[in-house]
């Protein structure tokens, strides 16, 4: 009726593809745990588990012999360990942005992808949390970073950004976990109702914490969800800002820059969206969810990637400008090293992968094509990892006194642990896909065409 008069651009976007009924949605999404995973899944899981095992073995070796098993030295006391930490924490931010911030902004296109994105946040934070634990020289004493009552009357040092990290990352993990879990409760309850296998039924009964779907339950649910979304929103901006303080608060030239908090947060969203987009491509193809995770979703995410890429380009320019404007010889030198130093190739990799390649997404055809999407996502992931390499290793490698300048060389153990973290991440992703509801069915049901209460006439057609 009335919508036929609206121009194309103002109409409700097609959030789903084709006609789907509520029952079909449930069957499609919630029946996954009841079925045996396909052979492909087992093959993939075997691969990621093997890679994780390699990583865990490398970690065990490090715990046994010492940090010397890595490439860290003087002056590069932090290298792959902190690069990986920042990398993974950053990746988690996309999920929280999608599920929390977009929720508050009432962007309904997030509904079908929020669950998976949030899950990826949890797994990314788990991967990230490994690193502060294993990178310390005496990991069996790492609990000293927590302020617990002790007989020596010792507090940790609250002025240290590493301690702020402890609070920030823990808060992030706990809030995200609660948020994610809360959101899943109604879906798990559905799975509980559908489950035939007694062990699955038992598990889902426990996890669904007595959800009955009553109006009272829904009221509590909506309020709690809103509150947690609000909390998580702040965390998107604060957590990576706090992580950036590890660097910004120090005196190292190249680290001591006020641009770091917004620069890091933008970079986190950038890297996270690329990773989420890559995973969603795989999910929608392998789990046959193309009509729920539509090309529209992917295109929107690509637009975000393009936007944040431009912001990153701006940030790099501002870094360069600030380095020049500061008239500080140490920062001048640090910045020149980024592009023309011993690891200058890393600096150029960052520029090309983060700023140049995502510009492909100006073309709408490329925004909707799998090869270009995967290419850009991979480039962004590599570029963002190298950006942390450039920031951490290259600034440390040549700081104030030239007598301590030295090259850094990673070892196989470093690479093993990096690879292993990817293995752990994707193992968890694969497990999640088979065990828990990958799409927030209740939220999607709210946006399925034809199923919203309307005042007269069925005019909700995308």
């Amino acid at each position, binding site marked *: 009726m009335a919508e036929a008069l609206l121009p194309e651009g103002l109409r409700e976007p097609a959030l789903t593809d084709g006609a789907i009924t509520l029952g079909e949605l449930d069957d499609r999404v919630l029946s996954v745990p009841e079925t045996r995973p396909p052979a492909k899944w087992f093959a993939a899981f075997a691969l990621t588990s093997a890679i994780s095992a390699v990583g865990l073995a490398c970690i065990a070796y490090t715990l046994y012999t010492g940090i010397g098993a890595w490439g860290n030295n003087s002056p590069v006391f932090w290298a792959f360990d902190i690069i990986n930490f920042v990398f993974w924490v950053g990746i988690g931010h996309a999920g929280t942005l999608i599920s929390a911030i977009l929720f508050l902004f009432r962007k309904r296109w997030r509904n079908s992808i929020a669950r998976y994105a949030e899950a990826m946040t949890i797994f990314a934070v788990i991967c990230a949390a490994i690193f502060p634990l294993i990178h310390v020289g005496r990991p069996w004493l790492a609990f*000293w970073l927590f302020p617990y009552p002790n007989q020596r009357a010792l507090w940790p*040092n609250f002025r240290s950004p590493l301690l702020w990290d402890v609070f920030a990352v823990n808060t992030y993990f706990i809030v995200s976990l609660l948020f994610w879990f809360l959101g899943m409760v109604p879906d798990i309850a559905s799975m509980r109702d559908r489950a035939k296998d007694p062990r699955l039924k038992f598990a889902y009964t426990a996890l669904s914490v007595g959800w009955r779907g009553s109006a009272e339950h829904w009221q509590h649910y909506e309020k709690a969800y809103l509150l947690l979304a609000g909390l998580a929103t702040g965390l998107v901006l604060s957590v990576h800002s706090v992580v950036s303080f590890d660097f910004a608060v120090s005196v190292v030239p190249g680290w001591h820059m006020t641009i770091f908090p917004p620069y890091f947060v933008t970079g986190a969203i950038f890297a996270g969206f690329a990773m989420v987009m890559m995973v969603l491509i795989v999910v929608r193809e392998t789990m046959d969810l193309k009509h729920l995770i539509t090309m529209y979703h992917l295109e929107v995410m690509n637009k975000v990637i393009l936007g944040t890429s431009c912001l990153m380009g701006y940030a790099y320019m501002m870094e360069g400008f600030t380095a020049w404007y500061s008239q500080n010889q140490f920062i001048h030198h640090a910045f020149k090293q980024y592009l023309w130093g011993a690891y200058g190739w890393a600096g150029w990799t960052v520029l090309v992968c983060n700023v140049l390649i995502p510009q492909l997404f100006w073309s709408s055809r490329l925004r909707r094509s799998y090869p270009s999407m995967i290419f850009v996502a991979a480039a962004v992931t590599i570029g963002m990892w190298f950006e942390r390499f450039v920031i951490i290793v290259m600034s440390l490698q040549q700081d104030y*006194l030239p007598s301590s300048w030295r090259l850094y060389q990673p070892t196989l153990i470093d690479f093993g642990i990096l690879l292993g973290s990817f293995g752990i991440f994707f193992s968890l992703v694969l497990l999640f896909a088979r065990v828990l509801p990958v799409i927030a069915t209740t939220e999607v049901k709210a946006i399925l065409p034809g199923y919203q209460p309307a005042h007269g006439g069925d005019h909700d057609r995308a």
Partner: protein
Amino acid sequence: MDNKISRRRFLGLMGATAAFAGACSRPNRGKIVPYTRRPGTVPGAPDKFASVFPEAGRAHPVLVVTREGRPIHVEGNDLHPDSRGKAPLRAIADILGLYDPDRLRQPLVDGRRSDWGQALAALRPAFDAARKSGKPVLLMTGATSSPTRRALIAELGADLPLSWVCWEPACGPQERLSLEHAKVVVCFEADILSGEVPSWVADFAKNRRGGTLSRLYSIEGGFSLTGSKADHRLRLKPSRAAAAAMALVRALSDPTGAGLDGFAKENGLSVDLLRGLAADLARHRGAAVAVCGPALSAEAREAVSLLNAMLGAQGRLTARSPEHAASTGLGTVKEALEDASQGKFSAAVFWGVNPAYSFPDAALWKRALAGVPVKARIGLHVDETALECGLVFAENHWLESWGDHESDSGFLTLQQPAIGPLYDTLQGEDILLRLFSGAPRPEYRLYLEEGWRKKVYSTGGGSFESFWTACLHDGLLRREARPTAAPKSRPRSAKPSATPDGFELVLSPGLAVFDGRYGGNGWLQEIPDPLTKQTWGNALRVSIADAGRLGLRDGQVVKVDAGGRAVEIPVLVSEGQTPGVLCAGLGYGRRTGNVARGVGTNLYPLLDCDSTSPFLLCGVSLTPTAAVVDLALTQGHHRMEGRDIARSVPVAEAPRSREPRNIPTMYPAQDFPLHKWGMAVDLSMCVGCSACVVACQSENNIPCVGPEQVRRGREMHWIRVDRYLLGEGAALRAVSQPMLCQHCDDAPCETVCPVNATNHSPEGLNQMAYNRCVGTRYCANNCPYKVRRFNFFEYTADKEEPEILAHNPEVTVRPRGVMEKCTFCVQRIQDVKQIAKTQGRGVRDGEVMPACAAACPASAIVFGDLKDPVSRVNSWSDDPRGYRVLEEVGAKPAVTYLAELTNPLEGEVRHG
């Protein structure tokens, strides 16, 4: 074999008083007299013993610090004028040699462990045969400064036919210098500031602080520490050094100096500079001295001698070392070995020399060994020579030995053991005493006492016992020995020597491993070479021009060929090296020893036995190979890149006043109620010898990490000597800057530690609580001076006896995963404060001396209480030359550096 030393036996090793003598099964080893008079040993308080570190015919007076009866540290003897109170680097490091796990623990007979009865019984027949047949015994020893040992060997020579060859493989003729009153010093290929003779560095440094500075010229082909510090450096091939000295001689007698211009032009030197040098020497007759390096030819030595005679320095500022301290040339050794190969000796005893490693002609050595029926090695380790000798006599370490020595200026100095022999070993002299014919001789300690009673002690000054005790306490006899006559110099015009084709190679003993005897000492292997900052190996220093021409890069292995003798060694492209000149260190490439084996390249095979100056090789060719070696360097970048780090100013431009810099800070000012410890380092006096590094390692139980870890950048030295190059080409010099924890008031490391493991003490020290550190390494990242060290692996816990006996019990050893750094020797500060408190007084200025300050031969490091208005550190810190490194970072370091003063010739001196 019992590897550990049982507690009971250990107590028995303390040779202090007779009360303990009953606890052990050995005969009375005599009384050693501690430096601080105390009845017996007080647990927890150190005892110091005056002794001597004898090396290659030079005697260095030292104090041995012992705790609970075992030596833990070696420092200088401040009562001894010759040493100026400082011990050389190798003396400090050789404490590790006492506890070397590779040491021989009992004599070996044909490779099997034995005892002294059997071992000596295996040698006596050969000695008896010598007495009967008249075929002498070959005794090859190192040079010695001990008159009693010489007397003993002379007595042995009367007892049986003996051929005594005294040989130091890496040392040329030695000099004795008195630089205190020298205003102009010219060094011909002589590295007088290397720290090997601490008194030279001390005397030089005294004249560099202010007032009228001395002036140092260095004429050399390489870039030595002396050249780095020199006010003017002339790059000259070593083969031309004789001609240079003669040109100066002629210029001194002929004021027009016409000959100088020609010489300068021929050799690419600046005419102005050479004229200026000649004029300077002429102006300072009587207060100028020329020094000839040990590698140069006899011709050069004579020329320099003549120059000294004209300068009036002969006999006053310079003298030749006494005859006994000299070693024979390679030629004499070669003759002896040829005699040996012809069967002219009934036995050979090698004591203190390792010819299987250091004699250049390996084929002759083999033939020589084949011609001697019985061969014995008196030594500390199973080294290359010991492997080829049927009898290996395990020797005492110098810390376990008695002796007397003539020091440089003729003082007689006593060496007393600081600990009884750890193993079943004997002093070399004792072994010889047991080989005499006839009635058994007394042990060497008694022989020494007897000798002194007869020859040194005079009845005028009380009983012999009190005289002996006083000498042992002080470590010296305050009596001049016979002065050595100044050698006569024969004026002779120098024959113009043809400039040979090919490279000139100058070989010198490594500053750390010396002639190779210390190859098993991990500390010495890991001390960065002061010039190249290389550890664990040697490299051939090549000039940039030559490297470019031959396409060489750092670490590339080249084949060095000197007259048919060739070795392969990696190169190091060195700025400052004269084109056409190569330099390298001897003492590497050992074949035995767990630590020494395979480290570096043995360059002894290059020496020419028939040359009178074997350490200078001419006509050397270089052939690059494809192999590249990763050199273990601790410093890779030697330019300051325009940063204000180590200041060096000509004395004319020295600052007259100092304005305090106002660096804004958001931290509140700290209150230091009682003491505020601070340090000042005078870069004018520091020569870069790195004795401070070894002393710190010895005092603070700093682990040795090995070459692989040094390559990765994980060396653990708490203090390092940074070396920065200034200028270019012929005007190149280098400034050395000791860099240690600055104990910043607003330390960047303290704020960022998440567990509060590092914090500031109320006396101004930045403290490190090892047991709280979890090892996040944020503090090290945030340190702008990068002086923090991390234990990347477990370096210490796996150590066993005897290595751990070298540890200083006052300092915690750090486990894996923990950060460590300089503490300003807080254990010494606490000790002094406690002593002062028990005595009811305050701490006196200069009472606290951190290990680095105590070891520095130049006394360039001063430590003290900044709150004490009359302390030296206060006046040094307020010096107009003073500044702080990286002050703009705002960390408020407690270490003030005093800018180096250079003293170039006034006026325009264009460098060639």
